C-alpha cells in the first residue's frame, strides 16, 4: 500500500480532514504534513481576535496522520471498504502555538499494534523544525466485516 492509497482510504472530509500529504510510511512509523488554512471556522472563536490553532485540533491532526494513516497501512489487505476507527487514549503535551497558515509535520512511531489497537508516540513540528507538541495516542480499528 502506497501513501496515495492510504489518503484515499481516510474516512475524513473537509472541514475535518487534517492530512495533506504523507512523506514516509513503514511498519514502524509514518511522517505526514498539514497546513492550517486561515479560513478554518475554529479561528473565529479560538481566540476572539487572536487566532491560534486549538490543542484539540493539533491532537486530531496528530491522530489522523500518526494513528489512522499508520493503522490503514498496517491493516493492509485486511482492511474492508468502510473502516471503523475509535480514538481510545490520548496524552499530549503542548509546547509552541500554531498560527493560521502554518505547515506542521507529524512524525509517529508505533509502540504496538496488537489485537487491532494501535498505540503510537507522536511528535508535531512547525516549519522551522521546532517541536510543537508530543504525546501518546491510541486507536482501535475495526473492519466492516466484523459483526460487532
Amino acid at each position, binding site marked *: 500500500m502506497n501513501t496515495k492509497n492510504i489518503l484515499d482510504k481516510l474516512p475524513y472530509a473537509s472541514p475535518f480532514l487534517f492530512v495533506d500529504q504523507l512523506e514516509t510510511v513503514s511498519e514502524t512509523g509514518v511522517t505526514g504534513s498539514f497546513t492550517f488554512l486561515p479560513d478554518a471556522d475554529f479561528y473565529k472563536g479560538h481566540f476572539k481576535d487572536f487566532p491560534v490553532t486549538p490543542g484539540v485540533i493539533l491532537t486530531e491532526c496528530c491522530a489522523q496522520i500518526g494513528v489512522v494513516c499508520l493503522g490503514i497501512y498496517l491493516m493492509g489487505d485486511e482492511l474492508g471498504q468502510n473502516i471503523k476507527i475509535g480514538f481510545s487514549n490520548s496524552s499530549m503535551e503542548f509546547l509552541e502555538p500554531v498560527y493560521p497558515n502554518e505547515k506542521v509535520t507529524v512524525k509517529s512511531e508505533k509502540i504496538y499494534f*496488537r*489485537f487491532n489497537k494501535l498505540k503510537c508516540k507522536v511528535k508535531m513540528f512547525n516549519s522551522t523544525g521546532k517541536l510543537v507538541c508530543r504525546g501518546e495516542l491510541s486507536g*482501535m480499528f475495526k473492519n466492516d466485516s466484523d459483526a460487532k
Partner: protein
Amino acid sequence: MQKQVLVLEMSMPVLFLAGIKNAMNEKEKYQKLKEIVQTYLPDDVSVDAIRPESNFTTELNINSANLVDIVLDVEDVFDITLENEDMDGMLTVGDALTIIDNKISDK
C-alpha cells in the same frame, strides 16, 4: 513387579507436593490477574466486582481498548503470548485464568 511398587511409593509424595504447589499458584495467578484488571476498572465499578465469573465488558465495564491493555499486561506478567482467538474467547475473568493456565502449561 517389586520395582513398580517402589516407583509408585516414591512418586506419591512428589505428586502430593506438586498438587499443593499448583493450588498455591492458582491463588497467586488469580491475585496477579486481579491486580492487572483493577488498574483498568472504571471509577464506578468496585474492586469487589472482580470475580471469576465477571464478564469484562458487560459487568466490569471495561472497553475493548482497555481489554487489549489487560491482555498485554497479562503477557508481560505471566511471560506468555496470546493470539487473536484467545482474545475472542476471553469474556470473563475465569476465561482469562484458563487461557493463562493453558499457555503456561504449553510452555
